[in-house]
């Protein structure tokens, strides 16, 4: 039986996710990737990935679990969490993705940097951009040198604000190649 998960990207909130934000992410994924989304919590708790020494969560460990939990046929799984993420060699990451894989995650933890309380619009825009960026990696897109492209790697939160919510023409072509491959399999 074909379930809705069979042809959609699952947005998996770890904690409660603002419905407006969930909708914004979904709309952006539909616009950039042409894929519809479904919000479905697959992980309610990520304590298993907590490193007590660093008081941060190991994103790679979460991604493995997330990929295991992905419903059969779900195109990709994108987790959204409030916890601070890290990979062992780096001090922190905004998010992580399995390159060409199933799962990706974005953390909202550091994305409110420099914002006044209540500036939800910019905060949400940042989260949407980083979510689309991480999802792009699961379609084999690498960091892009074009500063305005959504796949550009942001060295600071200012760079996140500066980049647009669009893929540059190169990344659009490379994504189209990947989507063509996906539809042929």
């Amino acid at each position, binding site marked *: 039986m074909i379930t809705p998960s069979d042809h959609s990207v699952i947005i998996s909130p770890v904690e409660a996710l603002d419905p407006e934000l969930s909708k914004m992410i979904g709309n952006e994924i539909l616009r950039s990737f042409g894929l519809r989304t479904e919000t479905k919590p697959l992980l309610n708790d990520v304590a298993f990935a907590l490193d007590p020494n660093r008081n941060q969560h190991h994103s*790679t460990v979460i991604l493995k679990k997330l990929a295991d939990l992905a419903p059969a046929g779900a195109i990709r799984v994108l987790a959204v969490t409030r916890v601070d993420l*890290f*990979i*062992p*060699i*780096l*001090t*922190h*990451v905004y998010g*992580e*993705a399995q*390159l060409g894989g199933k799962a990706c995650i974005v953390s909202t933890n550091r994305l409110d940097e420099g914002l006044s309380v209540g500036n939800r619009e910019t905060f949400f825009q940042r989260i949407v951009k980083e979510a689309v960026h991480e999802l792009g*990696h699961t379609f084999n897109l*690498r*960091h892009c040198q074009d500063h305005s492209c959504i796949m550009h*790697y942001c*060295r*600071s939160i200012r760079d996140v604000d500066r980049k647009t919510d669009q893929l540059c*023409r*190169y990344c659009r*072509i*490379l994504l189209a190649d990947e989507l063509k491959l996906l539809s042929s399999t």
Partner: protein
Amino acid sequence: MDNTKILIVDDELIMRESLAGWLERDGHLVDTAASGEEALEKIKESRFDILLVDIKMEGMSGLEVLKKVNESDSDVDVVMITAYGSISTAIEAMKNGAYDYLLKPFDPNALGVLIDKITAHQAQARENLFLKEQYKERTRFESMIGQSKPMQEVFDLIQDVAPMNSTVLITGETGSGKGLAAKAIHTNSPWCDGPFVVVNCGAIPKHLMESELFGHQKGAFTDAKETKKGRLELAHGGTLFLDEIGEISMRMQIDLLQVLEDRIFYRVGGTQPIEAYFRVIAATNRNLDEAIKARIFREDLYYRLNVISFKMPPLRDRKEDIPLLTEHFIRRFSQETNKPVDRISREAMDEMMLYEWPGNIRELENAVERAIVVGKSRSIRPEDLPIFHPEHLVCVPGNTLQEVEKAHITETLKENQWNIARSSKILGIDRTTLYNKIKRYQIKKPA
């Protein structure tokens, strides 16, 4: 292709994996080694741009890896990774030739900035090399020489292909004369009165490639002080030769395909469409079928380029051309060096005929040039060819060409104290090829 090749050397799996994942997402080609010993093996097998080496490892330490890498005369840049408390060792490493060090866990910004800095400095070095090569190319474009059957077939092909407008893809080993074949096609084509514009896709730094190909408008970027025509525009009415096409970045592949389809492009920062008509010839020593499978070369571009293709034969398959080529190079270099050398002894020629010439015509050219420079008589003798050693070449019936090649490589390495860069230059092959041959023939460095 446009990616920097990075080797991570760390005995902790979790560190290797997390760093590799981050760097791959950043667009680099990444390999890992769990020990210093494994890293040195991998360096022998393939070329890397950057090594990220953990200082503290079981077995061979990071400092020892650095020392061995320095001894190998590789031009890889080494960055040491260290934990807090081992900074003094990292500083010692920098004194011993490491490019920099990172304190783990490191800020992703610090890593990104450092990788950018290293790639920029390596691109600069490649650009300098390219300019030197361009200078040498001026003298290399001469008429093609060869009476052998494989070369006669190439000449026939060139005659057939030249009058057409079709794109040509020339394959063949390094030094086999792909550039000469491209020039010959141009000279015999209806485009011959137009320019022959060469783009060495492997040598132009990737950040300059777009501007080199398409040109730029004044003010398009910080260094764009004047409007500059790109090579596509310069090739208008002539032939555009894309050498080492297998090295071109995915981004440029997309742009190039579009230009080949539409013949219209824009200068960087420009808004006016520019039309240019030229014939395209591309060359590569890579196996593009494999590159397509590895998804580093676009299939649509491959089919666009591969309308007509042929392979340049390696020199070992047309040894009967060696005397003619040697004579040609003797004439040229004796004139250039002003030395009265006008022939080659039978013994020296016998040795040249025995050798496999893995670096093809370019290696032969280098050997003759060297012989003329060091020689003391009008005739090139075996001893003027220091790369040949009769006692090791053992011109005894029964010796295979592989045995001769192994002996020659061993001797050259020994003479040059295993300096890989110098030995590969003398042998006329690149370092990767030399490393592969060392591995294949199991040549061991003396303790």
